[in-house]
């Protein structure tokens, strides 16, 4: 019995953790992590609130097209893709909607709010091409590209507040929140992501399309349409690298990979969608 007691005591000691309050230390550590770590240290919930504000900012500049049937169709395609993505669960789920603009563009806000203009949707000739646009935008959310647009100095300041090294007034914190939102909106609407980020989103979109049964070549078809528009100097995918460069690496990936095409069974429902989209 004494041996048993000794064993119990040993296990207890092994599983014991000091009960001293290390909250200050952990807060300081969290602050330092924010200073050095950038976007990946932002929690799911914070990403959600930043994303809502970014989307709200975009929606103050572009009118939303509140067509229930078309929005539902877009959400169905988007959700199919999300389930096979590397980040299927996100704080409040992914949501897809349309902007009432003839400009050809698409935006992915943090937290999974993805907005497509009617102009870019009108360029799609089948469901797979529509899925290709969505897959590209989903991949930006998966890799948290929008969050990476926040200038590091803002995260440093917030990290300092979190570490308790300084107490920011509510106005200071609100200003950092707004500036962070504008960093992202500016990147989405004007500046654009880096070429590396765009390339990653394109290549991962090909894999995502294949994983869901959509034809990855649909992305190539969309890029060729974008290239044709670029020649006319229209504002198409203005925040992206040139379509020619994107076509080159997408073609290379398709040629070397083992990606398989989809089929035409989705054409009927796409035609129904088009008839509603054009009304």
């Amino acid at each position, binding site marked *: *019995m004494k041996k*048993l*007691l000794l064993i*119990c005591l040993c*296990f207890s000691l092994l*599983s014991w953790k000091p009960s001293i309050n290390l909250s200050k230390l*952990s*807060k300081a550590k969290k602050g330092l992590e924010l200073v050095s770590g950038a976007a990946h240290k*932002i*929690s*799911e*919930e*914070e*990403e*959600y*609130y930043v994303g*809502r504000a970014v*989307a*709200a*900012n975009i*929606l*103050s500049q572009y009118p*939303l097209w*509140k067509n229930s049937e078309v*929005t*539902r169709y877009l*959400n*169905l395609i988007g959700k*199919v893709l999300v*389930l*096979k993505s*590397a980040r*299927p*669960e*996100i*704080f*409040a*789920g992914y*949501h*897809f*909607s349309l902007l009432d603009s003839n400009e050809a563009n698409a935006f992915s806000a943090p937290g999974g*709010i993805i907005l497509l203009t009617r102009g870019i949707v009108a360029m799609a000739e089948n*469901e797979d091409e529509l899925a290709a646009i969505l897959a590209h935008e989903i991949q930006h959310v998966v890799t948290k590209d929008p969050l990476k647009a926040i200038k590091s100095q803002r995260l440093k300041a*917030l990290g300092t*507040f*979190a570490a308790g090294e300084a107490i920011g007034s509510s106005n200071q*914190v*609100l200003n950092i*929140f*707004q500036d*962070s939102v504008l960093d992202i909106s500016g990147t989405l609407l004007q500046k654009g992501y880096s070429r590396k980020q765009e390339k990653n989103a394109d290549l991962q979109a090909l894999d995502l399309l294949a*994983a*869901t*049964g*959509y034809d990855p070549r649909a992305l190539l078809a969309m890029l060729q349409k974008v290239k044709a528009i670029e020649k006319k100097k229209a504002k198409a995918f203005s925040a992206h690298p040139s379509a020619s460069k994107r076509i080159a690496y997408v073609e290379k990936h398709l040629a070397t990979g083992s990606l398989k095409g*989809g*089929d035409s*069974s*989705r054409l009927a*429902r796409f035609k129904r969608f088009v008839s509603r989209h054009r009304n």
Partner: protein
Amino acid sequence: MKKKIWLLGFFVVSAMLLAGKVLVVKVMRSNLLSKPDFLSGSLAPIQKGAKLELIETQGNWYLVRNAVGLKGYIHQTAVGESKTSLSGIMPGKKGASDDELALAAKGFNEGNEKKLRGSKDYNFADVDWIMDWNIANAALAAFIREGKLK
């Protein structure tokens, strides 16, 4: 009597050592699923902050047990590791988590969104319209079948 105390101590310590890792739900809402598949049946809805005991890992999925002992699957992207002990799983635990405290200290929260509402530069009414869209699992499964998708 002494023998009973030793035995009790032994069982308590053994339970502590055998207890699985504790996971905490980090998304607003999810489901405890009957299979490691998003389109499988939901056994119970799960809210943010719920603690789950990890039983085993299957690819990107976790087999877990919730506070009432129900076993089911959850995708790994819906949860994070909890810093609290297994006792945190028990119902009735109150108080903010470490993450909630950190969030309150920073600026990316509901409070600051409220301050931006009403500004001409932010259209939150349309964001709410977008966020109200939800697709039921049955509709999604039918859409996948009809389109011969995976």
